[in-house]
């Protein structure tokens, strides 16, 4: 059973990338569409809250992607020596 798609394509794209990296999505209510959790163990695991209708979907997606990239538990490609 899949999750609902975010209505903003930029945010949906970033959430899919996060899921491919092992992050899990949990649905929420009210202004929060949901939140994503990294592969870490609570209480150290990372969490990013995602609004249903942010004022700037592009910037919201950018910040979500940046938090996923900063996560110490997520394995990304090495980009620095």
């Amino acid at each position, binding site marked *: 059973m899949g999750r609902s798609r975010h209505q903003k394509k930029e945010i949906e794209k970033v959430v899919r990338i996060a899921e491919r990296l092992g992050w899990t999505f949990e649905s929420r209510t009210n202004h929060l569409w949901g939140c994503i959790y990294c592969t870490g163990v609570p209480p*150290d695991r990372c969490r*990013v*809250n995602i*609004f249903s209708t*942010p004022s700037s979907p592009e*910037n919201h997606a950018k910040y979500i992607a940046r*938090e996923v990239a*900063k996560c110490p538990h997520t394995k990304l490609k090495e980009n620095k020596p």
Partner: protein
Amino acid sequence: MTNQKIYEFTLVMSGVDPMDENFPNTVYELGGTDATISSRSGVVYVSFSRKSASLMDAIFSAIHNVEMANPKGTVVRVDDANLLNQAQIGELVGKTRQMVNQYISGKKGPGGFPAPACEFSNGKRLWDWSSTSLWFFQAGLLNLEQCKDAELIRAINNQLESRVLGAQNPKMVGEITKRMMSRPTTSKFPKRTIRQRNFKTATRPDHHPVG
């Protein structure tokens, strides 16, 4: 109508539970529709893309926004390039890490690069962006606005840190503030004091120790 532009920055908070569902919803309702709230290793970060007339207005409206959303929460700093390594400095000024290294060593540029803010036992060094940005501005490699923004954020962070320390140990902070205000601002002594040191005119008995 004042010119407004988008300012991007991140606030670091303490006293907010990363699992608190009410916090993001309340931030949104209080005007934080431009916020992205996340947590990493138990610390809550709130990133903003805020439209405002100035960076100072943007930051303080954001601080007000998040602290109203959770009265127990406190903004402890603006997480904006505080301490950087050479590669990160390079990214901010559009130069390679190797070029930044040459500025640091004095092989390129006007010399006098600021000393690192800290140095680890493994030799890694980090620089404070505020003083580093000033050097790049004076060397003609950074524009004035970027330099002023770094200086503003440093000043705001100093005040935020003082606020945290003042709440944790008000007695100590009060004593330090008192001593700072009573510190002499000039090395010159008034002439009246010199005359008083003339022992020949003093009325005390003449058996004081001769030093």
